[in-house]
């Protein structure tokens, strides 16, 4: 059971600052982390390996520094990783990213399963997982909340959809995108960290991965970002303080009146 996990390095957005004038993110001093939703894919991959044997390989497309994300995954227990990097990749949209990753995964050779995060917290599209499956023409299940069984080239999974859980039986090779419910990510171990430190992470370029330059980067991307703006957050609503019984009563009365006025009750 060999498993491939594409992981993305994203800015740590919990206290992201925006440049009001340009509407872009101030990246200085912003730390990069593994896309938090990819940790669930990594944990799931490691658990499946523990159960069925095999190797877990992570792959990240991004700047050379994406090596950090790969090493972090290795510290958790993945066996190895690859960084797909080069200036040609810059500006790739989800179509081009899916293409590049699928070509690199083809090149890796033998694998049975690909696990992706539900979506990356920066781009927030969730399109790359299904995109890779589409390019590779393998079975796909998105929003997977549990892997119930793998036997004889068939796997049974549950996926979280509107109003419930759908059970699918699918042929391997397959790609799953997983939701948080599927696992609880373990912390890196000391041994894992040591191993990650001494292991060389190969860097693959456009040429070594056999990728068509015309289908990646800005030129290979069907979409274009034409404008970026910072939305106004503040609504400037009415605020009431409820300090004592009297002010509490007034605040609640005002709230109910407000809801009535808005025809919400």
């Amino acid at each position, binding site marked *: 059971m060999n498993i491939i996990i594409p992981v993305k390095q994203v800015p740590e957005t*919990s206290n992201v600052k925006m440049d009001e004038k340009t509407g872009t993110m101030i990246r200085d001093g912003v730390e990069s982390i593994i896309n938090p939703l990819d940790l669930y894919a990594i944990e799931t991959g490691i658990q499946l390996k523990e159960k069925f044997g095999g190797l877990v390989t992570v792959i990240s497309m991004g700047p050379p520094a994406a090596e950090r994300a790969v090493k972090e995954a290795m510290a958790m227990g993945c066996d190895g990783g690859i960084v797909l990097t080069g200036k040609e990749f810059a500006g790739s949209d989800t179509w081009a990213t899916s293409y590049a990753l699928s070509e690199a995964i083809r090149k890796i050779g033998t694998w049975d399963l690909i696990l992706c995060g539900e979506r990356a917290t920066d781009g927030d599209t969730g399109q790359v997982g299904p995109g890779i499956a589409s390019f590779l023409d393998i079975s796909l299940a998105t929003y997977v909340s549990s892997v119930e069984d793998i036997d004889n080239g068939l796997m049974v999974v549950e996926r979280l959809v509107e109003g419930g*859980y759908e059970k699918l039986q699918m042929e391997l090779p397959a790609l799953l995108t997983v939701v948080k*419910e599927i696992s609880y990510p373990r912390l890196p171990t000391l041994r894992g960290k040591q191993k990650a430190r001494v292991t060389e992470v190969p860097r693959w370029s456009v040429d070594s991965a056999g990728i068509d330059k015309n289908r990646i980067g800005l030129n290979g991307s*069907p*979409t*274009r*970002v034409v404008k970026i703006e910072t939305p106004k957050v503040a609504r400037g609503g009415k605020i009431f303080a409820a300090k004592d019984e009297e002010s509490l009563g007034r605040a609640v009365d005002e709230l109910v009146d407000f809801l009535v006025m808005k025809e*919400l009750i």
Partner: protein
Amino acid sequence: MPHREVWTLAEAGEGKLRQVSFELLSRGRKLADKLETQLCSVLLTGSMSDEDLEQLIKRGADKVYVVESPALENFTVETHSNVLLDLIKQYKPEIFIAAATTTGRTLMPHVSIRANTGLTADCTGLEIEDGTGNLLQTRPAIGGNILATIKTPEHRPQMATVRPRSTRPAPIDENNAGRIIRVEFKNNLEDKRVRRIGFRKNEDQGIDIQSADVVVSGGKGLKKKENFALIRDLADRLEGVVGASRDAVDRGWISYPHQVGLSGKTVTPKLYFAVGISGAIQHLAGMKTADTIVAINSDPEAQIFKVADFGIVGDLFEVLPSLNEKLEEVRSR
């Protein structure tokens, strides 16, 4: 044949059209009018009568393309993708939009790869650019910190998924006329590698927080699991569902399908109540497009008050009981 029509993907469940199908027609109508072209709804389904399909016409579709087959009864992306790709090749739509539901967000990327075109996820705004006629697709990104406008200048169709409940459903007009076109299902398009073998409803109450009109969410301020009863009580009174911050979910007070925010669900209800929630940027990302936001928090500096239309600075353990009492009073009037 040039690319022309504007397409929307209709969704059905248990033999009935879903509300999002009508919301998309509301979006699609504006685009089609501006481009002076036809608005078409596409439905892949097990089976549906003309009478039911007429609803799409009454809500603005000039044409409805329907493909029926037992193979399309349940959603499996491979077969649905094959059929859509085939339709796209045959009829060459200019624009194709779907809802950003689990179905839309799975099917559309799968199709867009094979149709060799771009796709913009989870848009909140769609417009036609003057002059070029290109589709301008606006969506929040980086945890809702920015709004990016994206276009697909050279590839067709221009594809987008649209956030559910970000528009009202198109109104019914009994006088609208349109055509239902039944396209035969080609058996070779069935892909049997993935099969749906079961479904279980989420036993949890208030499961589908994305389609509720009212969401009442609780956060760490509730202090313990049992106190979520206060939230449920309020949600029941407002005929809404229960949501939660990530902190509340991580503590096991409530299950993950209730989580609102960047790593949970995005909701756009008419009314959102945030109780004991600080309003971290990742939480705001999931709810700040709600029509009306009410916040209850003991900290006057809490971020959540910035996005609130109505706020009460106070102890939720005093405010909620008092509010529930008052609502009871109003109701019995």
